[in-house]
């Protein structure tokens, strides 16, 4: 089992969700985040003083999938979120030790 964490542009969330659904992946957690990589922020004005807002709104999608579906999920996310410009985001993969379904205490890949 692997955990996929994807930081994407908020405007791409709907497209990514639809792509994942089409790929047969249903469980996910969405977080609102702020951050930046190499993307510059934007300037705002307050009383003539210019200041840079560089903590930009982002969306983080987290999901845990079985090893054999990992690549499909990654393709779905990348394909839907990509614009080709700086600021598209990143995907990180980590290994997951265990998954448990709270409702009936199922464990392992069947809990996903």
């Amino acid at each position, binding site marked *: 089992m692997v955990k996929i964490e994807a930081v994407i542009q908020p405007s791409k969330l709907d497209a990514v969700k639809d792509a994942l659904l089409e790929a047969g992946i249903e469980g996910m957690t969405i977080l609102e985040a702020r951050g930046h990589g190499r993307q510059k922020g934007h300037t*705002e*004005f*307050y*009383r*003539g*003083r210019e*200041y840079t807002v560089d903590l930009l709104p982002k969306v983080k999608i987290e999901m845990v999938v079985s090893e054999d579906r990992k690549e499909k999920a990654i393709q779905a996310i990348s394909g839907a979120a990509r614009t080709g410009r700086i600021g598209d985001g990143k995907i990180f993969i980590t290994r997951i030790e265990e998954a448990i379904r709270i409702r009936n205490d199922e464990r392992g890949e069947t809990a996903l």
Partner: protein
Amino acid sequence: MCRGVVRLLVFTAVLGSPIFLLAQGASGGPEAATQARIAALEQAVKTAQASSASAQTAGDNAWMLTSAALVLLMTGPGLALFYGGLVRRKNILGTMMQSFAMMGLVTILWAVVGYSLAFGHGNAFIGGFEHVFLRGVSLAPDPDYAKTIPEQTYMVYQLMFAIITPALITGAFAERMKFSAMALFLSLWSLFVYCPMAHMVWGVGGMLNASGGHFPSLDFAGGTVVHITSGVSALITALYLGKRIGYPKTAMPPHSLVLSFIGACLLWVGWFGFNAGSALNSGPLATSAFINTHFAAAAAALGWTIAEWIHNGKPTALGAISGAVAGLVAITPASGFVQPMSALLIGLLAGFFCFLMVFQVKSRFGYDDSLDAFGVHGAGGTLGAILTGIFAVSAINAAFGTDAAGNPIGTGVLDGHWGQLVNQFAGVAMAWGISAIGTLVLLFAVDKAIGLRVSPEEENTGLDLSQHGEEGYDFNT
């Protein structure tokens, strides 16, 4: 027109009955009949005059009570929202509480002694104690101040001005003053700076009073009394207290320009009560002041917006609403003295001038007048007072009466009365002087007594939690 119709009907009705009696053949001959008719006529005229006066009072009192409500609206929630939106989220309640506290505290002070100090008959500088606890302030008019409305209406109308003036100062020390110190400082300020200044400009015998003062100064609704005093006091307080932690490096943008926008619009509408209500009646002068107020606000919003568009490349919402407020401040002393086209010009000039004050002067000198109380009210009020001396015309308001030949005496420079500028400067100088000195003394005293500024930890936590144990917004529920 309605009054004329009422008069005519009353006249006819009252006149009709005794004539009817006479027609039934009362004895006495033609001479006695004429006398009886004259007597009836006199009675009819008296009754018509009484009902006319009563209609006048009804109109005036209705407008004045409405105006008083509008001016209170300017403080709560107008100013509370305007300032509240401009501070960081952790200070929203603290900021609004400062305005609200004035609504409570100043009311009590005014009722107990403030009205007496401002409008009692004292000397050229301060009123007396004859009206403590509002003794002698009845529902009958006080002819010294407003002939057609109860004196209590006048008192409560003036109270709303006394409330908003210290509330304006809170903009200078936003986000860093203790609630207790603010309450004490502004209470004392209201008694020792506001009341004397109000007396000097509007009180009987005041040295700046347009009727008979030593330097008869034209200040229709309080450009000097309200805006210069609060603006200059704001500057002194900002300098004394020092900058907010992190200023100017840390960005401290407004947490909700939406609230500020709502507040500014409430201020604009409320200002109709502030200026047009200062006519103290519901007649044509109130109309003049109403129109001037609106025109100046609109022109100033435009002026600031254009200046900002050129200077920064984008017209901001904050700039537009600040511009409107600047125009309203500048027209305040002029509202009942100038023509509508002059009001447009005054507004336009105020928009540009206050923009420069905020953008150039503040950054050059580096003081942390957090919400631009000095830049808008102090500077705008000063500009407005001078422009009043230029644009006032007796055709709108013959404030200085008429001369021996019955011609109205010129009021401002447009009437040829250049000397008025001296009087206006006198008013401005007095406002600056009493505010600077009074504020400095009071700040020092309160600082020594209980300390003015919150601790650095409290400032970082925010006023809401540190001063009031509350949070303005709860995003967790």
